[in-house]
């Protein structure tokens, strides 16, 4: 299943007409200890690049943007009890939400893992 990355450090896994979104290991490393994640409501319509979630670390609140447009179908309830999952398993168990793929063409502008790695190495 292909995984894409944004230059705002979100990842998106695409499986058929549905996608899973989270933040990258690099992002969680930058944020530090995560104490709360505000997730979007199921049914919320997200725009590509628009606000999707908020991550609260000890130090700051940070916005998480939607990599593509679509409708939220599920939010990761595990993060309510254990937001530190985003630190310990950012690209697996610490996923944020699932969504429909409104326009598959929007995936074209995103990076693949090689592209993202090169992007991060240059930061």
């Amino acid at each position, binding site marked *: 299943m292909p995984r894409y990355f944004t230059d*705002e450090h*979100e990842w998106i896994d695409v499986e058929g007409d549905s996608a899973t979104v989270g933040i990258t290991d690099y992002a969680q490393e930058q944020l530090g*200890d995560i104490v*709360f994640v505000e997730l979007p409501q199921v049914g919320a319509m997200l725009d590509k690049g628009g606000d999707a979630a908020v991550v609260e670390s*000890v*130090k*700051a*609140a*940070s*916005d998480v943007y939607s990599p593509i447009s679509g409708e939220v179908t599920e939010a990761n309830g595990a993060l309510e009890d254990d937001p530190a999952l985003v630190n310990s398993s950012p690209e697996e168990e610490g996923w944020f939400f699932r969504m429909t793929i409104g326009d598959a063409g929007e995936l074209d502008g995103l990076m693949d893992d090689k592209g993202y790695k090169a992007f991060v190495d240059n930061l």
Partner: protein
Amino acid sequence: MSDDSTTQSAGEQGSEGDASPERLALNDWHRAHGARMVPFAGYEMPIQYEGIVAEHDWTRESASLFDVSHMGQLGVSGPDDDMDAAAKALEALLPGAIGSLKPGRMRYSFLLDEDGGIIDDLMVTNAGERFGLVVNGACKWDDIAHLREHLPDEITLTHYDENALLALQGPKAAEVLGALVPEAADLNFMSAMYHDWDGVPLWIARAGYTGEDGYEIAVPSEHAEKLAEALVADNRVKPAGLGARDSLRLEAGLPLHGHDISTETDPVSADLTFALSKKRRETGGYAGHKAIAARLAEAEGNTLARKRVGLLLDGRMPAREGAEVFVGTARVGRVTSGGFSPTLGRPIAMAYVEPAHAAIGTALECEVRGRRLPATVSSMPFVPHRYYRGK
């Protein structure tokens, strides 16, 4: 992903815009110890090493070493080291009783403007031949300008910018420093001493900004690394950054200048009247006294416009600086700093609220991104202070 504009990261406070930040004497040492450096108060400062929560917890259970060399270390002396003249000059600017401060004793005070606004908060120490002032890094250049403008010509102001300042904080700080400097273990809270450490002059003050027992140690920059190495060689000590310093001081209920106190607030509204010496409330003779007297009368009659309080929030979502405080539909205040308390496992905040809603136990709400978070007015400190006041 990006930082909100409403965030309150210690690493972003007071950064100096375009001016490229200065390097600390321990810059390479911090990097070698894995620090993430950020611009703050005109310096590249370590915000964290292994992680803010780990460093925070370690400070509460053992001891941490903080580099706070960005802070301004100043000396105020009179002609021929006339301490009375220096005290008199300082008392014209600070609301504390400086003249009655005995050698080796220190006091928390403020630089006030004519309206009673807080230009800065500071520590003043009777260092024998002069008074030592430690002021906030982000304010030090303004403080120096203010002091130069208002101190009489015969008073000498010295900026000890060749000194580093290291803070050793935590319940094991006294055992650790006591192994290097035995007399330091017996020093009382808010006292200071000079020590010649193998030829390195140290000014050791039993004080800090974490609520824990500990020290702030002034050391010539060229010897800062030797001192830092000697302290972390003890496995009870780890380096900690500005991030943990901010969460620790918030739990300790200690205000941060530029956020919880400023020229827009005064010591009475900020609930810091303990630092307004009783005698000088009556005798006055300091900048801002008139305004302070008026605020004190208002506090007496419970008619202050607003008052600094602590807030304990329900849930896990923090209310940060700028969040508005409500009772029902009425806006009654504003959060000036807030975050997640690692020790309590819940969010805490400081806010200014109308006195009618400032009583301990009052139920309030903080608005964050359109959501109302239940909050209760709490006494401060949120986590008890553990200062050493003698056996």
